[in-house]
């Protein structure tokens, strides 16, 4: 997946001279996760470069470049370090078009690895999407596989609104399904890992049905898509699994269509539960499908604690926890 992300930026840099890529260690070194490997060499030092350790500054400068007419793509090294940029994201990028009635806007893309599974402890594992999905004016995208990662990232870069692009770091090198005790798999041979070389887009705002099913709808994104697939297979429950891909704007139609059919819904994410994006999903589902629901919408999430280093696998909402929720939901 990391190559797909790299390729998306490569394509964008090639096709649009206004694209600029920067962030901590992204230049010569190519990024601590290698997402920008080779891009500086290919596109030049003034289009792909290192930035100071100043997330607030990085986003601020991106907003300014966007006002000039550039299309900046910045990396926040870990999503856990996005908070110093909150003000520029919420007060500035998100509201630029609105407050100027369209005179200016912020066509910026903020890429950031998120989520756990690499023993990163509380400051290298967070999933802060729920903070930003509350903010009118921001879009939030989370891919679950290489094909989508490239297509969505190209679309995000080309989008004229500010997009937060959270990359499930545990998926960079393979389709992790939460079975941390099994051998590591890589992407090779995976159907969604066939990534075309050139330009293509995966439209923002469209969910994808990863598995059709009749018993229950699972709403997932990022790493949790793979966990959900595993849980469905292992329980034998005929779950319909939606990969939301874009949280804002959300593909509510796809959700409602599915839940109205299955009558049951489980929401899953790695972020802490309270006021996480799952709360919004749960609220929306019961608002739009109330009379079709046969059981309460279940939430399977990270616990409401920081991500504990040594207890990563007790914290991570893996297939066993999801399976239990699925069973509970279909048995209600």
């Amino acid at each position, binding site marked *: 997946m990391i190559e797909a992300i790299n390729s998306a930026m490569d394509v964008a840099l090639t096709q649009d001279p206004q694209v600029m890529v920067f962030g901590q260690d992204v230049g010569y070194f190519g990024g601590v996760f290698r997402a920008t490997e080779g891009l500086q060499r290919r596109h030049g030092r003034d289009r792909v470069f290192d930035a100071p350790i*100043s997330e607030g500054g990085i986003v*601020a*400068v*991106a907003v300014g470049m966007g006002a000039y007419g550039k299309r900046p793509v910045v990396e926040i090294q870990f999503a856990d370090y996005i908070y110093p940029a909150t003000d520029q994201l919420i*007060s500035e990028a998100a509201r630029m*078009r*609105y407050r100027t009635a369209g*005179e200016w806007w912020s066509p910026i893309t903020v890429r950031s690895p998120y989520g756990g599974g690499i023993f990163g402890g509380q400051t290298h594992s967070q999933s802060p999407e729920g903070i930003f999905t509350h903010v009118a004016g921001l879009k939030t995208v989370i891919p679950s596989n290489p094909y989508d990662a490239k297509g969505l990232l190209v679309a995000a870069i080309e989008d004229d609104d500010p997009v937060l692009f959270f990359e499930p770091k545990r998926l960079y090198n393979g389709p992790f399904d939460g079975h941390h005790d099994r051998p590591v798999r890589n992407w090779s041979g995976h159907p969604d890992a066939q990534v075309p070389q050139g330009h293509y887009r995966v439209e923002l705002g469209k969910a994808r049905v990863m598995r059709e099913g009749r018993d229950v709808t699972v709403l997932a994104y990022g790493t949790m898509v793979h966990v959900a697939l595993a849980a469905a297979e292992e329980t034998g429950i005929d779950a319909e699994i939606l990969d939301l891909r874009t949280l804002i704007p*959300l593909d509510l139609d796809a959700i409602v269509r599915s839940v109205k059919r299955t009558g049951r819904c489980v929401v899953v994410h790695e972020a802490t539960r309270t006021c996480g994006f799952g709360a919004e999903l749960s609220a929306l589902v019961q608002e739009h499908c109330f009379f079709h629901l046969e059981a309460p919408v279940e939430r399977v999430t990270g616990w409401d604690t920081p991500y504990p280093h040594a207890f990563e696998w007790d914290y991570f909402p893996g297939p066993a926890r999801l399976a239990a929720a699925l069973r509970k939901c279909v048995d209600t």
Partner: protein
Amino acid sequence: MHDTESGSQALRRNDPGLHIPEPAFRPGDQPDFSGISLPPAGAVARPSVDIDPSAIRELAFSLIRVLDEGGHARGEWDPQLPADVLIRGLRAMMLTRAYDQRMVRVQRQGKSSFYMKCTGEEAVAVAAALALRRDDMCFPTYRQQGLLLARDWPLIDMMNQVYSNSGDRLKGRQMPVFYSSREAGFFSISGNLGTQYSQAVGWAMASAADGGSRIAAAWIGDGATAEGDFHYALTFASVYQAPVVLNIVNNQWAISSFAGIAGGEQSTFASRGIGFGIPSLRVDGNDFLAVFAVTAWAAERARAGLGPTLIELFTYRADGHSTSDDPTRYRPTTEPSAWPLGDPIERLRDHLVTLGAWSIEQHSTLEQELAEAVRAAGKEAEALGTLKDGPRIPAASFFEQVYKDMPPHLVRQLRESGL
């Protein structure tokens, strides 16, 4: 305020506990600024623009002044502007003041919700506007309305914004004075202090990356220099040698807090730039000629690819912070008139008179003319509505432009709203 002699009076601790800075004067005190030592006009040398920044660190602790007490221009920083340019500047400053006066009046009448004047600080924006090119990009705070007026931006457009009326290009979305004008190279003012400063550096970086000759200029208040964005701006400007003029408007106050609460007691604001290798100048902000000259110097540097410049404009906020403020609660009523650097309009007027290019009669004629122009524009604007009365933009418009295209959830909410 910090003594202009390089730090010689930097306050030494005497209290055993926590040191809490206090301004020299509080209500009831008799303000006396005779302790401030001001270098005479013309005393500071003007280095060439390509000087090594490390050779001019002292400029951050001095005060560049051109106009002396007798109205004469002195020294190397005299920009030697033709009289018509000076008159243009004078006119824009006077227009700014007249505009401010009327807008406060209409706010008091309830026709708008809020207003902020820049009285006493008109030279800061107006002189800069004349020293910059029309297509240089300005990232102002809420006290540089003079930029728009000096760039001949229509009064009525500004008033429409203040009234949030049917002519408001910002569609009633922003509080009064948060102007935005792409055409005038005037960036959307943010309510969140400081954010524009670092954005300006990004804009300048983009311009540099394009090999363009357009530069950026930004303004920040003394108080707001304590925000992270100030630091981001200096850091990125220094690292990437961005073509940007970074102005700090030290008007001595941040609402009720004096500049010492922002660190102005221990050093000058200009000196913040030294640690980044950024040439840092301190200038009499009430001296139109001096402000013009340092801005032109900084702009020339930026355009020549020599990087950023930091400018502290030493001035005084002669009125309240905003229409919500009552400055007599925290400073002596007489402090503004005791301020030793005078009024920028009067100083430029006297200079022009001294030059023989202007007269007191011309001045009061112009004053009336401008008041009349403001009144006329005000009437026109009020015909388009005020916050209280008259035509409005359709309310439903406030659902627009959250995104480029309205996403489904906003379509649903707009419908739900019944607007």
